[in-house]
């Protein structure tokens, strides 16, 4: 992704941490019975959740922290998770 490649390592790290916190907050099912999850190597849960976010906001589904995705992540918003239980 050109935007991703354009980011400096520091910006990338900052975006990554920001996105991780965002996805933990709004794209993680909380409460109820917890279950372990076995995933294939390529099914990185971070990528899966980025895709989930991109689908929710009608963005191009890349699984990457591109500019449009980061723009959404940086917007002020409601604290209720988008993926809830």
């Amino acid at each position, binding site marked *: 992704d050109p935007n991703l490649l354009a980011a400096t390592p520091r910006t990338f790290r900052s975006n990554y941490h920001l996105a991780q916190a965002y996805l933990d*907050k*709004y794209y993680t099912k*909380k409460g109820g019975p917890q279950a372990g999850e076995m995933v294939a190597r390529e099914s990185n849960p971070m990528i899966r959740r980025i895709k989930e976010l991109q689908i*929710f*906001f*009608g963005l191009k589904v890349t699984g990457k922290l591109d500019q449009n995705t980061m723009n*959404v992540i940086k*917007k*002020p*918003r*409601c*604290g*209720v998770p*988008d993926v*809830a*239980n």
Partner: protein
Amino acid sequence: YRLFPGEPKWKKNILTYRISKYTPSMSPTEVDKAIQMALHAWSTAVPLNFVRINSGEADIMISFETGDHGDSYPFDGPRGTLAHAFAPGEGLGGDTHFDNAEKWTMGTNGFNLFTVAAHEFGHALGLGHSTDPSALMYPTYKYQNPYRFHLPKDDVKGIQALYGPRKIFPGKPTMPHIPPHKPSIPDLCDSSSSFDAVTMLGKELLFFKDRIFWRRQVHLPTGIRPSTITSSFPQLMSNVDAAYEVAERGIAFFFKGPHYWVTRGFHMQGPPRTIYDFGFPRHVQRIDAAVYLKEPQKTLFFVGEEYYSYDERKKKMEKDYPKNTEEEFSGVSGHIDAAVELNGYIYFFSGRKTFKYDTEKEDVVSVVKSSSWIGC
């Protein structure tokens, strides 16, 4: 639109709310206004009514909180998360929290409280986040003008999927009309049940039962016909618990659960209010019957086996009440369903019997069949 998993919703259509903690960014009056307008945005679409209380536990508890405030969803300081609300349910259910670290405003210089509150109340009523960018329930903040706001279509569809549409009532009624198709009319002529409420209203006597009420001229037991409560008092819908009129002031009171409405004739005066305004203790959740006594200008409220006395002049509940109804009203027995004063007598409706109580003799002087009042 999206609903929460399990589709939680409120099982009642009158919900209480309370603002328990304010923000320093706005005056309390502005906060009250923004909250009221935000709730109103939803009640225009569905048959839900919101009643504000100032103490105790409301269905929707509203507060401005800072950082970790004990609900597992800590706020994060300025920007980021602005607010959150819990889906309908007991305890935390319906509660709505705003991040006190934000700059809240009624305009655009900061985060508009109406905009965020309207969104959060969508959650408090059972809506999750919508994927439609034009929806109020879209997760990210987008300013909405409080004075020109109309609930977007997606949100209307969502909330009506839970509660159904609000019935549109064209204009203010002045006279009740007889519906062309009679709804299921409770057969009082052949029933052991009594009326839910009885009151004078102007020159007429009104008898309420379930979704129906009957009007009759006091001294003219003919031409009595049933009508739906919604046709004349749409806000009351059905099952009125108690009613009374203070003829001198030209107003009447209708009670239903912990709320009451004031009317002038058939014209409703404002939104419902809480019965605790009268000074009832919190354990009283509804009133069985009410009767206004002209001479002492006092209203008696019957709750279970007891009654309270309210001084209409002092606007205050009298001391030394409640008292036991059967002990104080000799000859009156059973549960009091409704009561009304006519020509100096109090008529107590209890099941199939109506006791005519003489206030001077302090005794029951006759007993008639309750259904005879409507021509049976």
